[in-house]
């Protein structure tokens, strides 16, 4: 099933990366939202594994599911919650920057294509 987000498509690796970064954004937001929920286990995406799976032809859902792991807390808390805000916020910031980077690669691709079409 060749789609524009697969390795051979228009956006190459950046389309797939953008998709997975957006999934990871959701996971990290869920962790931050559940910072005070007793017994909540924080999850994160192993980005490299997810990207490899996605480029290997797995669907976005399957790639995300197979690479979602539980976070190991530095110091477990008494109520069983494994969210550590410092870790989550750092990961969130890193992910947002990486999302912007992927987005600008995609944008560059679009711009050069537009230029080619217009014949400028």
């Amino acid at each position, binding site marked *: 099933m060749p789609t524009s987000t697969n390795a051979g498509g228009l956006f190459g690796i950046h389309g797939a990366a953008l998709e997975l970064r957006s999934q990871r954004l959701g996971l990290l937001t869920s962790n931050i*939202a559940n910072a005070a929920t007793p017994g909540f286990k924080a999850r994160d995406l192993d980005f490299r594994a997810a990207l490899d799976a996605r480029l290997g032809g797995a669907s976005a859902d399957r790639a995300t599911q197979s690479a979602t792991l539980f976070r190991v807390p530095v110091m477990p808390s008494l109520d069983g919650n494994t969210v550590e805000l410092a870790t989550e916020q750092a990961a969130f910031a890193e992910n947002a920057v990486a999302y912007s980077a992927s987005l600008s690669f995609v944008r560059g691709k679009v711009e050069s294509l537009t230029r080619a079409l217009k014949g400028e």
Partner: protein
Amino acid sequence: MGAPLNLFDVATRAMSAQLVRMNAAASNLANAGSVAGSADEAYRPLRPVFGSELDAASGLSTVRVAGVYRSDAAPVRLHEPDNPLADANGDVWSAPVDESAEMVEMMESARQYQNMVEALSTAKQLMLETMRMK
């Protein structure tokens, strides 16, 4: 079971849950020092308990208030014979509210509310940039 959750739903629900927590802390603080004529009538501090809710369709977890419970701390008995509420022994029962604990609860809740607003605005900005492609 409605539509799959998105980031905005997760953030809104988390903020509502924190609001319940802040309201409970405010009620407890407002009732600190209130007295009653018997141990049963005395005010017991409110405690909201959160639970997480996983939306399998989108893989996101949101927060819900699993319940608001009354703390089982024992009211403090004070000897105040002049108090019109006092019983035959001249005793009144005061609400067992720990003001410092409630203030800490309030601050923590406010911090987590802010975190959610921050995460939401970052996500919104990224989404808008993707929409405009600029």
